[in-house]
């Protein structure tokens, strides 16, 4: 199918020079193996990418091979947020709340050009990339991505999960947005991420 080779099963290996013992690293391997093969996705489908996501979940491409056949429409039972489609500003607090309702450990896939960067909707109504609202693990390019593309992104995420270490405190740190602005990355970074792009650079703002 043109996919990359499967990630090696022993991606986490015992390193004698580290401070961790044999038991914790083997436990890491076991836990990561379980987590990566039983991801329950929360499908946040807002546009045409959701159609490709449905095709990915259907029989031909069969997400059940990855332990993901159980779509979790409740965020509290979900491990993986798949944002499939554009997110308007009106939905920004909604996806933020869904992300906050998901329990740790949790991951996010930004599926398609619109979720990753705003895509062709470089206008007043659409969020220019959901990474300005929630942290994203894997970006899947495409407009919309084919199911093979999404599966490749899922396999990249599985590979990432297999290299996680419980002893690393930064992995499970919950994102805490600034209480006044509700932003979790600095405004200058957001403006830099979303400045001139697309075909409307001649459209200037009339106020800062």
């Amino acid at each position, binding site marked *: 199918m043109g996919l990359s080779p499967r990630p090696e099963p022993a991606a986490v290996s015992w390193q004698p020079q580290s401070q961790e013992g044999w038991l914790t690293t083997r436990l890491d391997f076991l836990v990561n193996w379980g987590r990566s093969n039983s991801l329950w996705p929360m499908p946040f489908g807002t546009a045409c990418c959701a159609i490709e996501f449905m095709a990915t979940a259907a029989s031909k491409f069969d997400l059940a091979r990855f332990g993901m056949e159980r779509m979790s429409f409740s965020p509290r039972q979900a491990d993986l947020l798949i944002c499939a489609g554009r997110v308007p500003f*009106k939905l920004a607090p909604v996806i933020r709340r869904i992300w906050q309702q998901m329990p740790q450990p949790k991951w996010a896939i930004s599926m398609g050009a619109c979720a990753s960067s705003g895509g062709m909707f470089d206008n007043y*109504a659409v969020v220019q990339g959901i990474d300005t609202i929630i942290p994203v693990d894997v970006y899947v390019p495409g407009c919309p991505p084919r199911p093979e593309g999404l599966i490749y992104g899922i396999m990249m995420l599985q590979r990432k999960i297999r290299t996680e270490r419980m002893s690393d405190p930064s992995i499970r740190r919950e994102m805490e947005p600034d209480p006044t602005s509700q932003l979790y990355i600095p405004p200058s970074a957001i403006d830099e991420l979303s400045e001139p792009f697309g075909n409307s650079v001649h459209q200037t703002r009339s106020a800062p």
Partner: protein
Amino acid sequence: MSGAPGGDAGGAGLLRAGHAVPGAPAPASRRGVPNRGGAANPSAAAAAAKFGAAVRRTEVVCGDTNLHVAPASALDVIRWLHDDPSQQYEYLVDVTAVEQRDGGPLEVVWHLRSIACRRFLRVKAELDTSKPLVVPSVWPVYKGADWLERECYDMFGIRFEGHPDLRRILMWEQYREGFPLRKDFPLRGRFSRAEQLKQALTGNPEAHYSMEELTIADAFDDLPVEMKVRLGHGEQVGE
């Protein structure tokens, strides 16, 4: 396309549009309708005779009739078109607006259809963009105009006088940047992306309910008397 049945191109057995049945006449199409001019909808002449100067002009565009009326009398004309037994425009298809470039007038457009008479009429009212944008609401005639006029207000900032609940419908209640479909609105909005995101994230996603919708006490006052009595006795509804 000469319209001859069973044409030569494609050969026998191949069906072409308009020639599904061999030997049948071609159905009437809009092909050949001029861009300007042609037979006007008879309702336009009737409205002009009835309302005089309030009907400013009539034009026929691509076979459809545009009836330009004075903004203040739009409700009267539309109410007459709805109520008059010889017109019977009982279906309001759409309410929208068109703003022209370079300071041209802003047109409010009502699309009306008479199912009984099989007629379509487009009523337009021109507004001066240098003055407050106000037209009468047609909500007293067509209840379906409620959300259409709210959308038109949300996108263009036109105030529909007499609308029962005129507030934003697509953008959120706290939206501060203006009216997105106006020509002077920048495509990316007036604020920076960080400011837009901050305003969106600090907003309450459930704030699109009006206070009327949220106030149970007001809803109780509108109930029928006998239901008020039953609820007042503490009767439970449902099991």
